[in-house]
């Protein structure tokens, strides 16, 4: 496509197409959007993050990532839609404009590019990274079990052949370490949202322990409002709660780590659907999914804007 206006948001795209989209978006909006390379994947693919900023230096920021599990295609596709949405609305939408007046937004659309390419070329159902370890024929680590929060505990597997293999040590995966390093060096991220599919859930920490987070009440209230906003568009029903009480114990998870770093507004989404198509969600549902999710994201972002800490 010659511009992001002719890009087809109603279909799934390859990694090259998404990376080309990013470059187009930056070229069309140089005063708002820039592209950062925060690291490289196991197979030496660049890890790109789009930064949406109206200026300033090291402003408080919101982080959104999609595609950490590569087979969850509706998430990367939604991330592409979010990027365009931010550009479209950053001036004419009062809520988004006021968010960007005070905060930056970082968006990593393809958080696991090696896995994503593998889903498109070899195995549509690949979930993990593509790292190899001596002593095992099996490849890959679950990038949502590789974080330094209850690492290696119950809720992750030590079997390299498992879909929930936590890896040899925390942050062993370059895709994870890149985000860890970025968050630590930035030091001013106030909201962190990691997007998965499927199940239609909005989750907050913890997953590795039953001890409630100190901010549980506030996070629960935010979740209630976010889910209400999401449902208002197409009636899609979501459940919400902490990871461990809503689904199951999961150790080494992303938002458990980010919360323990002091990022209070740490959330995970599980997008559509609830089990008709699962990971094979038809492309015609990409835009409706992204639209409704965006409403929930705005609730979280506006809360972060209005409640500095």
């Amino acid at each position: 496509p010659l511009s992001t206006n002719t890009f087809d948001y109603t279909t799934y795209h390859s990694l090259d197409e998404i990376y080309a989209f990013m470059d187009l978006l930056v070229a069309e909006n140089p005063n708002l959007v820039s592209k950062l390379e925060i690291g490289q994947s196991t197979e030496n693919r660049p890890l790109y993050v789009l930064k949406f900023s109206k200026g300033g230096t090291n402003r408080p920021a919101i982080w959104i990532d999609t595609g950490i599990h590569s087979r969850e295609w509706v998430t990367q596709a939604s991330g592409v839609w979010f990027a365009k949405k931010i550009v479209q609305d950053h001036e004419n939408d009062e809520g988004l404009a006021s968010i960007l007046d005070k905060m930056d937004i970082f968006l990593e659309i393809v958080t696991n590019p090696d896995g994503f390419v593998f889903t498109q070329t070899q195995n549509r159902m690949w979930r993990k990274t593509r790292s190899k370890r001596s002593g095992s024929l099996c490849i890959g680590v679950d990038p949502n079990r590789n974080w330094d929060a209850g690492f290696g505990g119950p809720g992750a597997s030590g079997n390299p052949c498992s879909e929930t293999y936590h890896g040899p040590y925390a942050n062993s995966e370059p895709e994870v370490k890149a985000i860890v390093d970025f968050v630590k060096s930035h030091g001013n991220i106030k909201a962190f949202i990691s997007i998965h599919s499927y199940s239609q859930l909005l989750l907050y920490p913890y997953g590795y322990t039953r001890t409630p987070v100190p901010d549980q009440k506030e996070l629960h209230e935010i979740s209630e409002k976010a889910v209400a906003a999401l449902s208002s568009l197409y009636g899609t029903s979501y459940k919400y709660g902490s990871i461990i009480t809503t689904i199951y114990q999961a150790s080494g998870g992303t938002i458990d780590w980010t919360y323990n770093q002091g990022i209070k507004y740490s959330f995970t989404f599980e997008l559509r659907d609830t089990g008709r198509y699962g990971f094979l969600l038809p492309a015609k549902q990409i835009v409706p999914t992204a639209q409704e999710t965006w409403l929930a994201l705005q609730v979280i972002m506006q809360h972060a804007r209005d409640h500095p800490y």
Partner: protein
Amino acid sequence: TETFVGHQVLRIVPTTDEELQKVEELQNLEELQLDFWLAPRGLGHPVDVHVPFPSLQPVKAHLEANGISYSIMIQDVQALVDHEQTEMLRSRRQL
């Protein structure tokens, strides 16, 4: 390229602790090469299992022998994957 001809995705909703245990046992049977799209999480919660064709009969037999009801969430995984590919190609051709 991995193909999914003959693969199905089954949905199991354990209603008793015994059923849950039987479903959890399936996770340890690596030779079946099951892919749990939704892992077991407790009674009343769905468990979605992507079952390759060679394992369909033994898995269904195991569930039926233990009185565990299941439904077929996706009858033909390859058909959905093919449809996805077709749609992507169509979009590229249109462009």
